[in-house]
């Protein structure tokens, strides 16, 4: 399905992503971990064509994504939804309108200019919101919602695009543990129920372990780990994060019950 070949991105002398190779053959839920500046966001942004690659290519179902331009590129973007850490909603617009933005690529420019969306789209948007448990907030402005609710609106917008892939760039980094759990569960559920591919940048190991089928570790732009959550031992994690022995996984955790979990204590030890 998705093949990333020698994908590289440099900003001036600075190489953000360095010859990354990833191959995904079936819709999976993939977590990308790595410390700040490792190149996770850049990788995702190249997938969504928000950033152009310097070299290498991305191929999806035989099509070369990196070569797309104009309308073709936008069509791909609409098939490959992106969820951001800061939600990136339009705060002054109501929730349903924000979800409807997921259809912008399919609808004519003229109609959308005047905020004219077809009724079936509106109904579908409300259904998606309902599925994510926030239908009753539909008419409110996005800015009036809590962080977790806003992130679910962003997920709803992504689903509205009916995408083949959902990219999520640290979707829970701005959320409190409670909301983080709700959002990750929503993503997992979408993956399981709809069979969509989900690629999420995560900054906590336990989240990656808990929700993902596959974990990719990046360090300084290079992919240094690619395996199942089980293979992701504390040693490997130390490697990915370039941490010394004092590294404690608990310190990065967002789990609510972390302190009670036996593993946590184990890792610290």
């Amino acid at each position, binding site marked *: 399905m998705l093949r990333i070949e020698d994908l590289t991105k440099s900003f001036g002398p600075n190489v953000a992503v360095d010859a990354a190779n990833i191959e995904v053959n079936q819709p999976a839920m993939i977590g990308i971990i790595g410390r700040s500046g490792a190149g996770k966001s850049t990788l995702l942004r190249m997938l969504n064509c928000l950033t152009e690659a310097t070299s290498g290519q991305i191929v999806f179902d035989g099509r070369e994504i990196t070569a797309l331009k104009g309308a073709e590129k936008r069509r791909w973007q609409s098939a490959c939804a992106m969820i951001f850490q800061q939600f990136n909603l339009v705060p002054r617009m109501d929730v*349903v309108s924000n979800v409807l933005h997921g259809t912008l690529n399919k609808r004519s420019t003229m109609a959308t200019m*005047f*905020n*004219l969306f077809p*009724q079936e789209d*509106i*109904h579908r948007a*409300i*259904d998606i919101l*309902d*599925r*994510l*448990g926030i*239908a*009753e907030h*539909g*008419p409110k402005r996005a800015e009036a919602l809590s962080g977790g609710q806003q992130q679910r609106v962003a997920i709803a917008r992504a689903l509205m695009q009916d995408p083949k892939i959902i990219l999520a760039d640290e979707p829970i980094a701005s959320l409190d543990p409670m909301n983080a759990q709700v959002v990750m569960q*929503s993503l997992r*559920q979408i993956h399981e129920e709809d069979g969509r591919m989900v690629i999420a940048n995560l900054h906590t190991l336990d989240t990656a372990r808990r929700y993902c089928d596959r974990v990719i570790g990046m360090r300084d732009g290079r992919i240094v780990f690619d395996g199942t959550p089980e293979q992701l031992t504390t040693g490997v994690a130390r490697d990915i994060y370039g941490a010394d022995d004092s590294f404690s996984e608990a310190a990065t955790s967002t789990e609510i019950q972390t302190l009670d979990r036996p593993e946590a204590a184990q890792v610290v030890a």
Partner: protein
Amino acid sequence: MTELTGSVTDFRAEYMAQVRRKRVMNGIILVIFIALMVSGFMIADDRNAGGFWDGLSRFFDFPKEVLGEALGKLDEMPAHFVKFLPSLIETINIAGASTLIGAMSAIVLSLLSTRGMAKWPRMIGFFRRIMDIMRAMPEIVIALVLIFVMGGGPVPAMIAIAFHTAGALGKLFSEVNENASLKPIEGLQSVGATWSQRMWLGVIPQVAPNYFSYALLRFEINIRASAILGFVGAGGIGYELKNAMSWGKGQYDEALAIFILLFATIVIVDQLSSVVRERLTHGKTSATMEKASV
């Protein structure tokens, strides 16, 4: 995630109704706006001597005529600049003095009309109305009346502009005051300070940079205002411009020289004030640090 299928249909209906309402409202507003614009344009076009579409092609007639003459006499330009410099200075002085006087009155007025600072809290409404009236008064009205009473010259213009400025700045200043902390004032009150001490030592230090920034912006506006008032007999560069312009061919070179002086002044003041204001409002933190590290 939710099984509230019944209520989802409710949400749908409710939301669709809302969407429809909003579309209708937006539609109405849009139609009203367009209708106002179009009919307004047609009325204005009709009541104008020349029509809009005919006039478009003649747009450059006048500049062409002015430039045509002025370009032929380019060598006289420097002399013209020197000749009109005193009038320009007068115009700038009118603006400067009126901004200064207006701003000083505005400070007092705004303090008197801000809750928590007013000397006579019961008079707040009264001072606000005074400022509203001062602000609503176009400068030209006062200037023309004063020219009648005291003859032409810069003073009527200065008074007229200062009057309007006091009202306009007073309103802005009182908005600034509203955001100032009342705590220092209470602190000073508790040591037995008089009203003027409370205001001068407790309020002014908090609001001075904002006051200054608004006053600069006003200065820029007042330069234009004083040029316009010159046009109706209040002296300065506007008066020279009017004479040169209305004489027409034969003095267009002077008109152009005056115009260049005026334009350059406006642009320079505009750029200078935006740089200073930028410093005042955004560079505040660094200024604090500087002061603090003395």
